[in-house]
C-alpha cells in the first residue's frame, strides 16, 4: 500500500535521512520508532508532503506521491499538538476536509455524526475545542483526519501530550478505532510501549535509516543489531566472539547459545533480563557470574540491579517477598541457552 524507498534529506551538511525505506500493507499499522533526531518526523513530513526529499520515492496504492502537493495527497494527519481550529466548533473542525471536497451538507452532517460516534464524542459537536479535555481534543483531531476517508493515516506522537494514565486508556481505544476503520496507518513515536501496543509492525530508525522493520515480537526477540536490541526494552549486552555452539565473552565466560541467524563480522550476545534467574541452574543452563549493584522498591516488584562483567546494570524484577541479596554480593545467574541470542553489532 505505502512504499517509501531510499529517502535522503540533507539539512546543510547533516543527513536527516540517509536512505530510509519502509512499507506498510493495506490496513496495516506501522510504527516509526526511534530516538529524537533519528529522522522519523522528517520521514512523516515528507510522506505528508510538507518537506521534500533530496532523493527517494513514495508511492501510495501504486500512485507516485513524490511530486504531489500536500493538499492533493488524501492523507489524514494527526499532529502532536492536535492543531485543532480554535474558532470552529468540534463539528466544523471534523467537517473541514469534507467542505474542501464540496460534500453536500446532508452527507457532511451524517459523516460528522458518524465520526463523533467513532471516537465516542457523540453530541459534543457544538462545543469549542477549548472546552474539551486533552484526551477529547486528541480524539477530535483523529476524527477530523478520518472524516475525509484518507488513503493513509499519519499520527505524529499521538499520545505524548497526555498524562500517563489517560495515555494507557487512549492507547487501547486508539488500537480499537484503528482496527475498526482498517486504514493504513503510520505512527511516529519515540515511545516503545506505544509502538508495541499500537503497531502491527515496528520500524526502528536511527541516524536517518530504518535499521529493522518487523512485528513487535520480531524486533524484540530477534533484533537486527545492537542498537535495536538496546533501544527496545532492557538488554544485557555482552561483547565477545561467537564460536561453534555458543559465545565466548571478552571476560572469558563460555555461554551456550543457538547459532546466529545473521551473518556479521562483529557480533555480541543479547540476554533480556527477564530470562535471568536467581535460582539454581537446571541441567544445560548457562551460568553467568554477576554482582548486585543495589535494589529499588517498585511496589508490584522489586528491581534488582545486576552488573555482569562490568556492564551497565540491568534490572531484574523480583516478585514481592523474594529474599534480596545484599548490594555488593556476588552471585551466579542461570539463563537458558535459548534465551541467549547472538546478534550483529551493526545492522547489515
Amino acid at each position, binding site marked *: 500500500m505505502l512504499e517509501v524507498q531510499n529517502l535522503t534529506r540533507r539539512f546543510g551538511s547533516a543527513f536527516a535521512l540517509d536512505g530510509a525505506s519502509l512499507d506498510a500493507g493495506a490496513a496495516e499499522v506501522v510504527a516509526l520508532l526511534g530516538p529524537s533526531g533519528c529522522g522519523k518526523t522528517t520521514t512523516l513530513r515528507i510522506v505528508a508532503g510538507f518537506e521534500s526529499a533530496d532523493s527517494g520515492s513514495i508511492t501510495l496504492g501504486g500512485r507516485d506521491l513524490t511530486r504531489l502537493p500536500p*493538499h492533493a495527497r488524501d*492523507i489524514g*494527519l494527526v*499532529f502532536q*499538538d492536535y*492543531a485543532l*481550529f480554535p474558532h470552529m466548533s468540534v463539528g466544523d473542525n471534523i467537517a473541514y476536509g469534507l467542505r*474542501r471536497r464540496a460534500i453536500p451538507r446532508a452527507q457532511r452532517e451524517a459523516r460528522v455524526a458518524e465520526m463523533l460516534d467513532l471516537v465516542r464524542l457523540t453530541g459534543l459537536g457544538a462545543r469549542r475545542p477549548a472546552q474539551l479535555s486533552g484526551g477529547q481534543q486528541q480524539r477530535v483531531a483523529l476524527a477530523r*483526519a478520518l472524516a*475525509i476517508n484518507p488513503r493513509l493515516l499519519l499520527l505524529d506522537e499521538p499520545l505524548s501530550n497526555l498524562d500517563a494514565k489517560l495515555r494507557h486508556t487512549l492507547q487501547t481505544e486508539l488500537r480499537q478505532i484503528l482496527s475498526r476503520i482498517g486504514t493504513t496507518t503510520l505512527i511516529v513515536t519515540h515511545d516503545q510501549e506505544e509502538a508495541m501496543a499500537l503497531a502491527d509492525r515496528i520500524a526502528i530508525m536511527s541516524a536517518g535509516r530504518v535499521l529493522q522493520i518487523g512485528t513487535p515480537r520480531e524486533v524484540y526477540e530477534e533484533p537486527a543489531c545492537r542498537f535495536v536490541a538496546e533501544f527496545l526494552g532492557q538488554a544485557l549486552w555482552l561483547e565477545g566472539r561467537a564460536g561453534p555452539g555458543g559465545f565466548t565473552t571478552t571476560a572469558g565466560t563460555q555461554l551456550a547459545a543457538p547459532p546466529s541467524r545473521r551473518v556479521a563480522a562483529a557480533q555480541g550476545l543479547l540476554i533480556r533480563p527477564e530470562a535471568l534467574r536467581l535460582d539454581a541452574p537446571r541441567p544445560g543452563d548457562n551460568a553467568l557470574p554477576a554482582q548486585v549493584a543495589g535494589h529499588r522498591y517498585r511496589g508490584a516488584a522489586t528491581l534488582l540491579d545486576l552488573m555482569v562483567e562490568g556492564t551497565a546494570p540491568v534490572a531484574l524484577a523480583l516478585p514481592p517477598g523474594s529474599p534480596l541479596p545484599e548490594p555488593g554480593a556476588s552471585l551466579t545467574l542461570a539463563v537458558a541457552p535459548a534465551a541467549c541470542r547472538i546478534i550483529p553489532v551493526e545492522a547489515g
Partner: protein
Amino acid sequence: MKVALDLAARTLARLAVLAAVLFLLVPLLVACLLSFDDRSFLGAFPPQQFSLRWYRAFASNPTYLDGLLISLQLGLVAALIATTLGTLGALALMDPRLAGRDALEAVFLSPKFVPTVVIGFSLLVFTARLGIFDPFTRLVMGHVVITLPFTLRAVLASLIGVKRSQIEAAISLGASEARALWDVAVPAARSGIVAGAAMAFVLSFDEVAVSLFLSDAFTQTLPIALVAEMRANLNLTIAAVSTVFLAATLLLLLLLDRTIGIERLAGDVGARG
C-alpha cells in the same frame, strides 16, 4: 532617616506623575475652553463669555471643510490599503520557510523609524520621477507608507497564537495554502486587522509632515489647512477645529476600546518587539 528619604522619594515621584498629567492635559483643556470664547480676539484666559461662534466659523470656512473631507477620504483609503498590505505581509512573514524573515520584517517596519520629513521629501521626489502629480494619489502613497508598519505589527501580534501545524492541518485536509491561511489565520487575525485599520486611520488623520510635502494648495488635509490658516490669520477657529479633532479621536479610541481593548491597541502599536 531612611524612612524620611523613602517618603521624600515617594512624594517626589508622585509630584512628577502629577506634573506630567497636568502637562499633558492642561493645554488640551485650555484649547477646549478657548474654542468656546465669545470674544473676537485672542484675549486673556479664562474667557468671560461663551458661544459657539468659532464652531460656526469652522462650519462656514470652505478651507477647513474641504480639508476635513480630504482627510476623511485619505484616512479611509490609506487605512484600507495599509491594512490589506499589512495583513498580506504579516501572513507571508508567518511562514517559517520564508528566507530572511527578520530582515523582511525590519524593512516592513522601517518607516516607523525614518523621520516623517525624510519620508515626505523622498516620496515627493520619487512620485515626481514616476510622473505622479495628482496630490491625492501622492498623499495616499505617503500615508500608506507611514501607516503600514502599524497595521503589519498589529496583525503580526494577533497571529502569534496561530501555529504552523494548524495551517498544515488545513492543507492536509485538502485546502490550498491560500485557502488554509484564509480559513485558519485570518479569523485569528481579525482583532489585529481591526486595530491596525483604526490605528492607520487615526495616524493618517493627524499626520502633518508627510502631507506637507505631498499636498498642494488645492488639496489640503485638515491638519495642513490648520497650519496654513494659523500662519495666515490666527484666530480661535483653530481651537474649535482642534476640539472637534480631539473629540473625534477620543470617540474612535473609545469605540476601539469597547470592541478590542485599549491595552491590545496600545501594545500592538507601541511595542516593537
